[in-house]
């Protein structure tokens, strides 16, 4: 907390007229001391700081990110994110990135798209970068706004509805390139170098490699690795080293390796056994999976009685899988969650978000997944969580 030294007007008026805070008489406690107004500042994130992106559908122009201490269940602050923003947080939690749209008259005038950099501890705006007014005004997913692995560039998903990726140089704080990615969607950043892949409507990956200036120097199309007509995958990636895990609408897991010269693809495996299929269990929600890296556990938001159109339904249970053995290791009750995120590190927690209540349940990632706490009222249409 920083003390605000400057005395404010009107505040000064009663002060000078109030009885001075004298020492108390005998047998009576001392009166409360005079206080000064202060300003909170956050400590660096501890691994369980949640950043919850709220679309505020009923008042979309006033979207925001709620910052929450997930372990203590305490509300820490807000960042205004504006209209249809894409958001992410730097790996060290020092910067919160917001790609958003403004109009000079709230809803009219000339559209301006910008990337904003907010300080992760003061929650103040540190910088604003103009970008082409093509930014996707979309639900914020993990793969819509993505920093390069070294933090130099920020990739922004565009849609007009033709698709492309805007490249922002975070060091120079300027827009550097727009890379067409026709028919492809999402940004899957590679662990090494300035390279991203994007998932295309024909079931392939398009991989774009940038030069040092952030311009595309090569583009390569992979073989088809999934069938978008028969088994569409969610674009939300889980990351384990240089592997990316995607699940499909019908409950298959696709592992994609983003290393070496070109992507590699493992054979998909199913989350479901015969009994699960009979009950039509399927993945569902927005942020449909999360992964605890140390234990290699993949959590999937699942519902039964699945059918065409149920792929965003809230979950009935959260199923846990060991990704190396590809076996289910737990079935955890859900709070009707649409989004999941797991923290890593010393106190790993599994967070599940119910959008209607703005409710986040935190469970320990440990035997039995005991419930640690529940916070409610975290936003109105919160869809996306990150944790640092």
């Amino acid at each position, binding site marked *: 907390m920083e003390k605000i030294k400057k005395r404010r007007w009107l505040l000064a008026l009663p002060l000078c007229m109030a009885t001075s805070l004298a020492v108390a008489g005998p047998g009576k406690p001392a009166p409360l001391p005079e206080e000064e107004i202060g300003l909170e500042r956050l400590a660096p994130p501890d691994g369980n700081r949640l950043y919850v992106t709220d*679309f505020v559908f009923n008042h979309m122009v006033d979207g925001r990110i709620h910052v929450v201490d997930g372990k203590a269940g305490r509300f820490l602050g807000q960042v205004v994110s504006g209209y249809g923003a894409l958001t992410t947080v730097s790996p060290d939690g020092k910067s919160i990135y917001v790609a958003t749209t403004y*109009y000079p008259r709230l*809803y009219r005038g000339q559209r301006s798209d910008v990337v904003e950099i907010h300080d992760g501890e003061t929650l103040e705006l540190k910088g604003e970068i103009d970008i082409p007014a093509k930014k996707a005004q979309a639900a914020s997913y993990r793969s819509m706004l993505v920093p390069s692995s070294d933090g130099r560039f920020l990739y922004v998903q565009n849609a007009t*509805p033709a698709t492309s990726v805007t490249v922002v140089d975070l060091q120079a704080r300027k827009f550097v390139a727009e890379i067409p990615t026709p*028919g492809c*969607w*999402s940004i899957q950043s590679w662990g090494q170098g300035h390279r991203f892949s994007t998932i*295309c409507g024909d079931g392939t990956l398009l991989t774009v490699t940038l030069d040092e200036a952030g311009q595309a120097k090569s583009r390569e199309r992979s073989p088809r690795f999934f069938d978008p007509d028969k088994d569409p995958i969610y*674009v939300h990636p889980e990351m384990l080293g240089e592997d990316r895990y995607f699940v499909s609408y019908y409950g298959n897991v696709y592992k994609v390796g983003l290393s070496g010269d070109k992507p590699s693809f493992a054979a998909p495996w199913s989350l479901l056994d015969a009994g699960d299929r009979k009950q039509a269990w399927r993945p569902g929600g927005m942020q449909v999976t999360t992964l605890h890296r140390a234990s290699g556990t993949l959590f999937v938001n699942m519902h039964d009685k699945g059918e065409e159109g149920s792929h965003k339904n809230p979950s009935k249970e959260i199923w846990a899988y060991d990704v190396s053995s590809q076996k289910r290791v737990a079935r955890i009750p859900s709070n009707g969650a649409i989004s999941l995120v797991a923290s890593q590190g010393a106190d790993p927690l599994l967070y599940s978000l119910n959008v209607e209540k703005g409710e986040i349940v935190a469970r320990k990632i440990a035997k039995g997944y005991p419930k640690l706490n529940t916070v409610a009222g975290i936003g109105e249409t919160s869809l996306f969580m990150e944790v640092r």
Partner: protein
Amino acid sequence: MDFLKLLDGFTERRTRTVAQNASRRGFLAGVSKLLVAGAFALPVLPFDRTNAHAAGGHGAAKKKAEPTDTDCDYWRYCSVDGFLCSCCGGTMTTCPPGSTPSAVSWVGTCHNPADGRDYLISYNDCCGKTACGRCFCNTNIRERPGYRMGVHNDINWCMANQSSHYHCTVSIVVGLEEGQS
């Protein structure tokens, strides 16, 4: 306009992809899938078609045996996603006063119980005012991620308008589904 140019390319690509389907029937099915996208429509609260809770709860007509044009389970809202313009000062087919129809839209296929036919329904967004906030209605049938942009609904379909602010969604009969008469 730069925007239209981009769209032209987009349309061509789409058409080529779709044309991989051999039969006209298959071709059409592909197209209607492609176009059954999200008339803005954050897929925030996925409701059953039979669950008109959202629409009923906020400014809608009372729940009746026969759904009306302000009920989420009205037949032509079978793939709508957003605020029903009927609750916002428009109708099923007209934008509320002062708003602007979206430059891009998507199409669903809905079954009309009154005549037993399946119709192609164009879901246009009405734009240029902030969110109406009344009669939210959402289904996700045949919705797909953004790599199938024509059927993706986690995105604002007012995106191509001068003011990209989303207000509400209309549902317009544009034809019979292939094979119907």
